[in-house]
Each structure stands twice: as C-alpha cells, then as structure tokens.
C-alpha cells in the first residue's frame, strides 16, 4: 500500500558521502577523527581477518596435526607455530584468526536478529502506544532487569538443546545475545518513535490522512532507526564480550565446532599461571582490540551525530522566536541522543534571500 513510487529524482549528494561511517569521517577533525580512524582500522583488520581467515590462517581451527605429524602441545611460539600451540595441540594463531570469523558471524546474526525484533516492537510500542506499549515496556524492563548473562545461559541451553555444530553453536550464542539485546533496541527505538510521533512532520502526515501503517513505515521507521548504527557498534562489542563470558562459563562454542576467543581464553587460564602465556594473551588481545575498535567507532559516531558532543558543529542551532518552548532545563539523559539538532542546524542560511 505504501509502495507508490515517486518519480526517480536526481539526488544531489553522491551516495558515498551519505553512508554513515564515511560521512562521519568526513565530518570529523582532530583527535576525534584520529580516534574514529583508529577504531575503523581495528575494525577493518578484524573484518578482513574474518573474511580472509582461510587464506591467512596456516591451519584449520581444529587441526592438530599435518603432514609432518601431530602438533606439539603447549609449544611456545616458533617458526612453525608463530603464536605457539594450546594444550590440545591447536595452533594459537590459526585459532585467533578463525575466531574473528566466529565473532563476526555471532555479531551479525545476534545484532541483526535483535535489531529486527527490537525495531519492530519498539516502533509498534512507541507509535501505537496504549496498552500494547505498557505491556511491552513492562516486559522489556523485566527482561532488562534480568541478569543478562543468565538469559544468555538459559537461552543457550534452550536453543542448543541438541548438538552444537558450528552453526548450532553460533546460533545458540547469537540468539541468547539477541534476547539480551532486544530490550535495548526496543528502548531506543521506542523512545525515538515517541519523540518522532510528536514531530511536526509526522503530524503533518497525519493531517494529510496518511494511515498509521504508512506513517510508521515511511516516516517513523527511517528516522527512528538513524541511531541504530551507533548502538550497533556498541552492541557488537557487547556481543563479543557476552560470547566470551559464555565461553568462560562453559556455555560457549566448543573448540571442534569453531574457534572462539572467549573459550580459548578461558581454557588458557591455567596455562597463564603456569607460565604459558601465549595461549591466553593472543585471544585476550584479540577480544580487547576488537572491542576497542568497535567501541571507538561507535562512540565517535555517537559524538559526531550529537551536536552537543561534536567538536566543530555547523552554525549554532537557531532558536525560534516564539515562546512556545517549554522549560526543559534538564539535559538529555540518553546515551544515544537524537539527531534532531544536527538536521536542524542548517536553517541559518537565510541570508542569501534578502
């Protein structure tokens, strides 16, 4: 019903400058840009590692022997195993590289699922309101108050039920993370939907007689989800940590199913106290650097999108002349504040007209 297509209109800015990350890089300067780029570099390395794992990793993730025979166990870094081997004889370097793949898969599945569900519920709850909203909010709050690792554990039991193959394991981890994240997306999207609902452009659609569906799909959805990339990066790093935590508690993905950093790190704990540092340090660093990278990207994007936090904004936001503004003295509380300020910032260019 909302598929009425409009004439193909020429767009004035090239697409690539409007892509979230690239436009952020363009808009940043100084240290803020430095941090964003550092984050991007770490993230890209991480992604490349995942993508090219078969080419980068010298061995398979569960390979413990090659033509020359069994791998030595707990072998210190050497030419053959540049980061050494684990107690089971796995090659640490290979597992770290393959681990990136697992991490990416888990992130993609987990975040995609939670975005999908969280956004749908958040939109409905925020826009439709009423009882639906109240019930969903209480439920989401309850889930939020639920210790997240507990949800993850229970879910991984419920889901993994049977076997943990590579995909089984990844799905189990991902879905358990999803359950934890849905309330977060729900909150953010719902808050945005509620804010947008009162925006004049939504009201103007309403006065035009547009149906609720059309309003949600065409007006609220796209605007409410603009902050999603920011949460995405933040949650991506949380997903890695949750996965690592699950691995640590023994609910993770088994080493024969896939390489998983948290699991390896957990297994390496007795190694570390025995002076065998290489089995723990590399997966540990992989986790830390990946989370660092993703968080840097997320935070920088967040700061750039938020004119309050942006280093160098465009002109100051215009104040409208009417007294209609309410006494909203208190600062915003959200970590992912709206984008409104930045879109309105351009209204100061009236000069050319006079």
């Amino acid at each position, binding site marked *: 019903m909302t598929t009425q297509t409009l004439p193909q209109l020429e767009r004035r800015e090239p697409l690539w400058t409007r892509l979230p990350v690239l436009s952020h890089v363009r808009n940043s300067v100084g240290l803020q840009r430095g941090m964003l780029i550092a984050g991007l570099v770490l993230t890209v390395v991480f992604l490349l590692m995942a993508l090219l794992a078969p080419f980068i990793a010298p061995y398979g993730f569960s390979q413990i022997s090659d033509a020359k025979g069994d791998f030595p166990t707990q072998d210190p870094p050497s030419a053959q195993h540049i980061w050494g081997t684990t107690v089971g004889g796995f090659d640490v370097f290979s597992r770290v590289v393959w681990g990136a793949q697992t991490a990416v898969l888990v992130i993609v599945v987990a975040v995609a699922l939670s975005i999908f569900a969280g956004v749908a519920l958040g939109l409905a709850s925020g826009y439709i309101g009423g009882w639906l909203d109240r019930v969903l909010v209480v*439920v989401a709050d309850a889930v939020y*108050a639920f210790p997240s690792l507990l949800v993850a554990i229970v879910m991984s039991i419920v889901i993994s039920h049977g076997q943990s193959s590579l995909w089984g394991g990844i799905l189990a981890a991902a879905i358990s993370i999803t359950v934890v994240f849905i309330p977060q997306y729900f909150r953010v999207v719902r808050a945005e939907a509620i804010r947008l609902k009162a925006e004049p452009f939504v009201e103007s659609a309403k006065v035009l007689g547009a149906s609720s569906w059309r309003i949600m799909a065409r007006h609220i959805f796209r605007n409410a989800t603009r902050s999603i990339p920011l*949460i995405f990066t933040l949650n991506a790093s949380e997903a890695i940590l949750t996965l690592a935590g699950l691995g640590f508690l023994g609910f993770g993905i088994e080493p024969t199913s896939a390489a998983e950093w948290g699991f390896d790190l957990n297994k390496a704990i007795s190694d570390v106290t025995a002076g065998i540092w290489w089995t723990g340090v590399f997966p*540990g660093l992989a986790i830390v650097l990946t989370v660092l990278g993703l968080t840097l990207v997320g935070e920088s994007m967040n700061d750039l999108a938020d004119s309050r936090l942006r280093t160098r904004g465009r002109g100051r936001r215009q104040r409208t002349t009417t007294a209609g503004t309410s006494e909203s003295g208190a600062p915003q509380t959200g970590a992912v504040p709206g984008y409104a300020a930045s879109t309105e910032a351009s209204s100061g260019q009236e000069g050319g007209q006079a």
Partner: protein
Amino acid sequence: MTALIETPPEAAGVPAPAAKRKGGGLATYLIIRFLLIFPTILILVTMVFFLMRITGDPITAALGGRLPADQLAQRIHEAGYDRPIMVQYFQYLGQIFTGNFGRTISDNRAVTEMLATFGSATLELAINAVVVALIVGIPLGMIAAHRRDKTPDAVLRIFAILSYATPVFFAGLLLKLVFSVWLGWLPVAGRASTSTEIALTSLAQPTGIYWLDALRSGNMAAFWDVESHAILPALALGLLTAGVFLRLVRTNLIGTLGRDYVEAGRSRGVSEFRLVTRHAYKPALIPIITVMGLQIALLLGGAVLTETTFEWKGLGFQLAQYLTARDFVAVQGIVVLLAVIVAVTNFIVDVVAALIDPRVRY
C-alpha cells in the same frame, strides 16, 4: 554485560520525571513506580519458571550419568517434576505469595537463608566496586569533559574503553598474576583467609558483610585481612564500571557545559574549575544518577564473572552454579531478589534525583 548502553529508565516508558513537572504529585508518581515493581517481578518469575523447566530438571542434571533411564524417570516422577507445568506454576506462585520460597534442590538450604548469605557477599563486592568506580570514574569523567578532544580526553576515553573491553576474567587473571603471584602483595582469591573467616562467622550476629563484621567486633587484624582480599575483585569489577561512569559523566557534562547557564556563569567571571565542578556538574548529576542507579542494580547480577574469577561466593557466582544444576528453586529465588533490587534501586534513584532536582521537589 549490558553495561555500555546507558539508556535510562526514562526511555523505557516508565513514566518520565518530566511528567512530574507538569504539576502532578511526586508521591503519586513514586507510588505508581513502586507498584510497577510487582508486575515486573511477576513477569520475571514467570519467565524464569518456564525457561528453567524447558532446560531440564535437577535430577537429570545430578544423576543423568549414573542411573538407568527408568530409575531416572521414576525419581523425576517422585519429585513431581513431571506434573502438568501449569499446576507446578500455580503451586509455585501460591508458595511465593505466602512468602515460602522453599529450599534449594541442589544443596538444600532455605532460599531465604541462601539469599541472605550470598546476597551480603555480593552486596559487599558491589559496594567496594562502586566505591572504586565512583572514585575513578567521576573525577576522570570531569577531566575528560573539561579537556574534551584534547590529549587527556583521548587518553581517558581509551582507558575507559579498555577497562570495559577487557573481559573481567582476563583482567582478573592479570591482576592476580601481578599482585598475588609476582609481587605477593595481595591474596589470590576468596573473601578472607581461613582464620578470619572462621572468626567472623562465629560472631553472634554476623551481617555477612565481612569488613562491617570485623569492625563491629573490633578485630582489626581481620579487618585488614578482609580489605586485602577485597582489593582485587573491587578493582576488576570497579574499573569495568568506572569506564562506564567515566563515559557517562563525560557525555552528560559536555552536554551541560554547552548550556546557556554555564555560558551565563562564565559571563559573570566564574572560573572554569567552578563551572565544571558546580554549574555544569550538578544538573548533569540527575541523568548520571539515574543511569548509575541502573548500573549498580545490574552490577549485582552482572558480577557472575568477577565472582567466579575471585572465588567470591556471591549471588552471581551461585546463580551460574544453580543454573548448571537446574536448581529452579534457587534460580527463581535469586531472580526475584535481583528484580526487587533493580526495582528498588530505580525507585531510590528517582527519589534521589528528585532531591537533587528542585523542580520535582515538593
């Protein structure tokens, strides 16, 4: 693990404090907020109940490797775990309403006693960690906000991210290695050394918070022993939270620093230091406290990894254990307690925020 998303409860549809400003009674608002605790707990209990039943039963968990299937089934039947689930559910609800939380299945203790024992341990850890987080997070957050986008800010932000990005068990391991194994300054794990623990548990009315017990009994040796055990876990968990606090303080402070009233203060010749620490900080405190409250509540449940790493026998640690044992009674009890804590903390946070914000004061 949900530490980083700092969405305050306001975003979550619990009626925002803004509603209060419209002239309604703060009391009404708080009462409603208080009443909301109950549906929340009911939902949690229900979720836990059904989820736990899906995951299996405690008897299989304990004896699945030893008994023939028919014997196992018989025992499950005798324990009543094969009755219709709704019957079990309503029976359980009935018990809860009469205040009977039952006894844990896997280690047979009264749930209330178990909650008190482990709750006090977790409370102690949480207090310690929050102290660390506040001492580290708030001043550093102020510095970062004040020197935003300068080198100190960048360094502090990286520090904040690193403290968050390092899995707590990894950080804990490193702390143990450095301070216990290499330097030998601090004990490896546990809440107290054996003798202290015996001394403290044989007190007449222990609170279960060791440093408090030690102080009350005037046993200074025990006090120092307890404190030396507390340092590493508090650091591990506290730094994790400090990272979040730092970020939170920084973001909100930057927000208020850009406000007109700060500019107004500046135009009156107020020093930059005072602008940051008074003019901008106090208004920023309201959202900070809201989110911090949530954080602290989550800290209680989120301490699983820290507690496991440091043998800190608290709720989080126990939760993981009971879960493995499919001890639904215990898990349900813990979740109810956590829900109450979260709800009550939110409630208290609202009251505190109200005290700070004159606009909602009546």
